[in-house]
């Protein structure tokens, strides 16, 4: 109750209510996430059920166009699946993989960042060198390489079966340095502050100091990059799927849908690419906008402005 009251009066909520962009983004994001969670319930068709798919329906334009079919509001894809349903299922996959990957990154990154920042010295130098090298390769390149290796190692068939957990693993492994660096930087900033020394003077164990005193104080930057990392993970997933290194066409994510539609753009079937594209961009954009807003609010420098 008290927490709620505190939250109600907080600067956080206050600045949220004042910012139209943040409110709109939040509402859109919430809607999209709800749509993706409820996809099996609200989607008019089940794109995974091969018995309901008729290849004769392939490449139908949206219902408002000349050859449109009211059964398929946004038209159909190359395999004759209802595009709207496929997109909802695709968004669902993207959200799942994105959140899963960020969760994995966060665990690896926070752990390594904390160890590195608190221990300092050789351990720090070693871990951060790895992070630096990996980052200088770019997370996309690392993800592409890991997935390429996995695909060669597992074989295409197995890889497609295991695509969701593998993508979570790939994107998680590719992007942990972002977290590790952020957490490390804020641990370095916090660990020399006097409240940490005070905790040491009390005699608290370093484990307790790390996780009880320092960690909560690194959470603002972690929160900010978490939003942006979800956007990045969704983008990475889309990129991998677009390259044929991610979700297979039978279980398409937004990226693989765009990929499958790309070839047909020359024959005029723009909707297979455009609609999933718009959905992907809107989803990523609202997360980025919220991330930006969050950074402005949580950054004490701008806060004092």
């Amino acid at each position, binding site marked *: 109750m008290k927490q709620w009251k505190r939250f109600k009066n907080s600067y956080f909520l206050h600045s949220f209510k004042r910012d139209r962009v943040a409110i709109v983004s939040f509402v859109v994001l919430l809607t999209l996430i709800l749509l993706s969670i409820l996809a099996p319930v609200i989607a008019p068709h089940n794109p995974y059920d091969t018995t309901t798919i008729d290849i004769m329906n392939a490449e139908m334009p949206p219902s408002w166009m000349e050859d449109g079919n009211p059964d398929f509001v946004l038209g159909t894809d190359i395999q004759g699946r209802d595009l709207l349903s496929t997109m909802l299922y695709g968004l669902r996959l993207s959200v799942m993989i994105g959140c899963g990957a960020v969760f994995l990154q966060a665990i690896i990154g926070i752990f390594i960042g904390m160890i590195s920042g608190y221990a300092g010295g050789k351990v720090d130098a070693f871990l951060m060198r790895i992070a630096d090298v990996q980052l200088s390769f770019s997370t996309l390149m690392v993800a592409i390489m890991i997935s*390429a290796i996995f695909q060669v190692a597992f074989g295409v068939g197995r890889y497609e079966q295991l695509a969701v957990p593998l993508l979570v693993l790939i994107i998680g492994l590719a992007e942990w340095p972002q977290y590790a660096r952020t957490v490390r930087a804020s641990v370095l900033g916090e660990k020399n502050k006097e409240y940490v020394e005070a905790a040491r003077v009390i005699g608290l164990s370093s484990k307790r100091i790390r996780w009880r005193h320092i960690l909560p104080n690194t959470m603002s930057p972690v929160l900010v990059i978490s939003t942006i990392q979800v956007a990045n993970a969704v983008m990475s997933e889309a*990129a991998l799927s677009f390259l044929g290194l991610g979700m297979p066409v039978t279980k398409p994510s937004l990226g693989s849908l765009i990929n499958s539609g790309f070839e047909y753009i020359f024959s005029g079937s723009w909707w297979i690419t455009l609609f999933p594209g718009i959905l992907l961009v809107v989803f990523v*954009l609202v997360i*980025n906008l919220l991330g930006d807003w969050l950074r402005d609010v949580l950054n004490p420098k701008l806060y004092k402005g």
Partner: protein
Amino acid sequence: MFAFAVRRITQAIIVMLVIGLLGFSIKQKIGDPVRDIVGVSVSVAERDALREELGLNDPFLAQYVRFIKNAVHGDLGMSFFFKRPTLEVILSKAPATLELVFASSLIIILLSIPLGIYTAINPRNLPSRIIMGGSIVGVSIPVFLTAIILIYIFAVELHWLPSYGRGETVNVWGWESGFLTLDGLKHLILPSIALSSIMLPLFIRLIRSEMMETLETEYVKFAWAKGLSRRRIWFLHAFKNTLLPVITVGGVQLGILIAYTILTETVFQWQGMGFMFLEAVERSDTSLLVAYIIVVGALFVVVNTIVDLIYGLVNPTIRITGRK
């Protein structure tokens, strides 16, 4: 400065050894050099003989050392598909990719510096808001989607520009260049815009935020108090200090463009290293894949080291004391 350079170069060599180790391990685990050389239609006994001959039964470390030695001499193995040394294959594809990256970098640098400075100096006016709004939309559109949209508009609908390939190229001392023909340049436009679309917003935001931070510093305030002209304060006092972090971050980011060439080259069927890499994955051409990883790794390391050295030259603290 000399000591600083020695340190950075030593670090680069260590990183290259580690990348070599990774590449070598991949080759060991999933590659099959025997297949790369003789294909699949050879008897088991002959294969074993060949394994022994190739030293594939030696201890891991010995093989690794040999691998590195060969790599230093430019031998990264044979491509299973092309039946040619992998390095040769990659080098034949490299000009396409490097020209693409160069063109994009040029677009990014030429646009981001003025836009970044402008939005930092006028943080609240309308043009700045439009630029910043555009930049966040920009980072939210995946490169491949930008590429597809560009193709749809300018190639499919308007027929202004070609949609795929490099067009006519000229061979200059072994370098297949598309810069020297009108057709080549036309082919370059869409891919390079698409490729720069991901980094341009990031660069604008980076320059803007660094510049704004610099404008808030005491020394800039002191420069105002000295009665200097605006231009001198903005373009010398503030921008020179903005440049330092922008060089470190920006240099690395430009290197990262190479990663995104995989996406753009796929969309535009641009016959570069990225396109080749994806084909290698599809064909399970392990040697070529590993060679690509090592070459691109070397490229990244070289870029990073050069960026660090430039940073050291620009920053008087490092130039004079050799310390960070």
